[in-house]
């Protein structure tokens, strides 16, 4: 029994009362209480929590622990307000965080302090045989300091298990309930009105197969709008790149829903909001391109021959300064009257009573039928386009780009309606599609990056020797990217063949085809 046990105090019970009760029964030595101030950190999308980890900050020291707080995995210092994995010095913490949080920044979830009072239970030799610690957590929440959690921690001393059992039994008789160590993590966050794991970029909409298509589509759109509005205020703060990314994904999904779930809304509104959401996309395209580019800085440097490694510096300097301007433009654009009005009108539209109208003939149909039709139509198109590419000697790049867009639309549709289909079959098909998307995505990225480099070469002021060398370095990068792109294009045939294999085709048909139940 070398493990620590935790107990909750009943609400009407307090530290002093417990101390009195213990003292009547045991010989106690009370240590001086200690006060520890801390903050809890995680990424906006709870990446550490999902791995059952928490990051505790004390002054500028960060400690990676399990949720129970019983194990320290790594520690390091950073003075950043929103540190990234790469802000920590090379070492265990840096290494462990990198694959988990990737490009996301760490943000403070809640700050507070823990007051620990340790009672030692002594035997007749005045030897400590059990340690009892009362930990009281208070958090600084919006409404001021609140008591978040009180727990009693029983630490046995090795070789004195019998005594630990006696004390545990005594606490049990007093009415203290045992509890999991992780509970205090959730209690602390809830005291600050946070629910662990509450935000996710993944779309999870629950639809009933018999829902009217118009209503179901509004439900999907409302979930997307909610995600979009959660991320929007953080974009201007520039904490990390993923707020913009998630915002843009919601915008794209909304546009796909508007164009692919056909004839469920009146034509005029559909057209108007398609236009509106294109505006959000266009507004943020360049900023996202710059982000992608800057996130890959190390990759690009590694692509260059070592003699050129530093010649690329002016390019990144240029991108950084350019990004600062573009960010301001995007922030202004999002804060503008126009944007506010779009979001207001959209919200009003999504929350109004659904009315049947002649130019939305699908509004009243069973959503399961419409979903099946929409997905299968899109799927057949993907297969047809892919076959055309395969049969061509040397297919133009544009065809692959178009196929990528079609795949994306198919993927979004499958995600919107996931709740209407058997999870297992659906998951399998999504996995297959994802492989194809990864291949097309890489091909597209490589092509976009080349265009972007050309754009930089034109945009950069070519005045000094430095920038001339940078242009040479750009040339070298383009050559490498082009090689990789050709390779990716060669891979397409195999990847697509797997996706469009006969068993996979029949799976799609079974799940989404005509006559599927």
């Amino acid at each position, binding site marked *: 029994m070398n493990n620590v046990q935790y107990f909750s105090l009943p609400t009407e019970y307090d530290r002093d009362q417990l101390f009195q009760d213990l003292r009547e029964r045991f010989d106690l030595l009370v240590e001086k209480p200690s006060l520890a101030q801390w903050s809890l950190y995680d990424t906006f999308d709870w990446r550490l929590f999902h791995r059952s980890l928490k990051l505790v900050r004390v002054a500028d020291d960060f400690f990676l622990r399990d949720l129970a707080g019983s194990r320290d995995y790594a520690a390091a210092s950073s003075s950043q307000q929103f540190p990234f994995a790469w802000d920590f010095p090379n070492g265990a913490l840096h290494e462990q965080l990198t694959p988990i949080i990737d490009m996301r920044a760490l943000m403070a979830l809640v700050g507070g302090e823990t007051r620990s009072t340790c009672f*030692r239970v002594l035997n007749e*030799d*005045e*030897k*400590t045989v059990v340690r009892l610690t009362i930990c009281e957590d208070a958090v600084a929440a919006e409404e001021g300091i609140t008591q978040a959690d009180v727990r009693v921690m029983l630490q046995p*001393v*090795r*070789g*004195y298990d019998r005594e630990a059992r006696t004390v545990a039994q005594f606490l049990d008789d007093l009415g203290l309930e045992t509890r999991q160590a992780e509970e205090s993590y959730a209690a602390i966050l809830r005291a600050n009105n946070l629910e662990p794991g509450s935000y996710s970029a993944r779309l999870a909409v629950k639809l009933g197969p018999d829902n009217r298509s118009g209503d179901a589509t509004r439900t999907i759109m409302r979930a997307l709008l909610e995600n979009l509005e959660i991320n929007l205020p953080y974009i201007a703060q520039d904490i990390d790149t993923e707020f913009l990314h998630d915002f843009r994904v919601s915008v794209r999904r909304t546009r796909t829903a508007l164009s692919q779930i056909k004839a469920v809304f009146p034509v005029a509104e559909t057209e108007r909001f398609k236009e509106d959401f294109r505006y959000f996309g266009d507004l943020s395209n360049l900023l996202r391109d710059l982000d992608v580019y800057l996130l890959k800085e190390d990759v690009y440097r590694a692509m260059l021959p070592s003699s050129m490694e530093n010649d690329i510096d002016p390019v990144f300097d240029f991108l950084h300064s350019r990004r600062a301007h573009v960010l301001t433009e995007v922030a202004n654009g999002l804060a503008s009257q126009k944007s506010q009005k779009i979001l207001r009108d959209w919200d009003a539209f999504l929350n109004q009573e659904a009315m049947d109208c002649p130019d939305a003939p699908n509004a009243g149909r069973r959503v399961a039928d419409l979903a099946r039709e929409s997905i299968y139509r899109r799927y057949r198109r993907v297969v047809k386009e892919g076959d055309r590419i395969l049969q061509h000697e040397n297919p133009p790049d544009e065809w692959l780009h178009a196929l990528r867009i079609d795949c994306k639309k198919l993927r979004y549709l499958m995600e919107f309606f996931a709740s209407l289909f058997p999870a297992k079959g659906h998951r399998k098909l999504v996995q297959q599609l994802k492989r194809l998307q990864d291949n097309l995505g890489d091909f597209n990225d490589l092509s976009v990056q080349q265009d972007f480099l050309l754009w930089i070469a034109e945009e950069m002021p070519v005045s000094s020797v430095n920038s001339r060398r940078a242009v040479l370095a750009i040339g070298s990068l383009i050559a490498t990217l082009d090689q990789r792109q050709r390779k990716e294009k060669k891979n397409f045939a195999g990847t697509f063949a797997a996706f469009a294999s006969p068993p996979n085709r029949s799976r799609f048909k079974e799940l989404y085809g005509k006559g599927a139940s």
Partner: protein
Amino acid sequence: MTVLALYSNKGGVGKTAAAVNLAYLAAQSGKRTLICDLDPQSSATFYFRVKPRLKASARGLSKGGKPIDKSIKGTDYDNLDLLPADFTHRNLDISFASRKDSLGRLSRVLDPLQDEYDLIVLDSPPTINVVAENIIAASDHLLVPLIPTTLSVRTHEQLMQFMDSRKRDTVDVTCFRSMVDRRKKMHRELSESIAEEIDGVLESIIPFASVVERMGIRREPVPVFAGRSKAAQAYRDLWAEIEEKLLGQA
């Protein structure tokens, strides 16, 4: 894991006091430490307020029965556990000698603790016999307290001869000066000459001090109840020197 044995073939040289205080300081520095009381007098066990088991079964050390990890007791201090002395340790040499591989017994007993502790401190009985050989075989470092007397240099030579005769060159022998009374002229002079005549004498000197005697009454390591005393500082200096010179950590 490093095994550090406080060893001397003479009694009353401050061995146990050094073992207890060094083990405590090691644990304070963050090392997961186990102190093994191999001395039948069981003073180290007493200092940590642990009752020695008086049942005649040296569990896991010389006879079968309970494995060693069931016998280990936590002390009152973080990172510091104790393997209590045992009544039957008095018979250690007999029970060791009566077995095969009688010299590797202690090593094998300590082996399962590899991952659990960074440092094991052995407090040994003042003998040269099979128990001593077991201790020598199990240790990475022997730490020998020397009192500045005319005999101490000779006793130390005997130990070194014994080590040579047993071909025990896997263990490193280091001495430190113990119970040095600065008021005695002879102590001062001998203290100097010891450092010249014997190789590998540490610089730190543990003084003869009543505060060390008081450990028996307080049942606590010196730094706990007399942190500001000269003796406590001397043990801290000695620990720092051991960390730097023997454990390779500055």
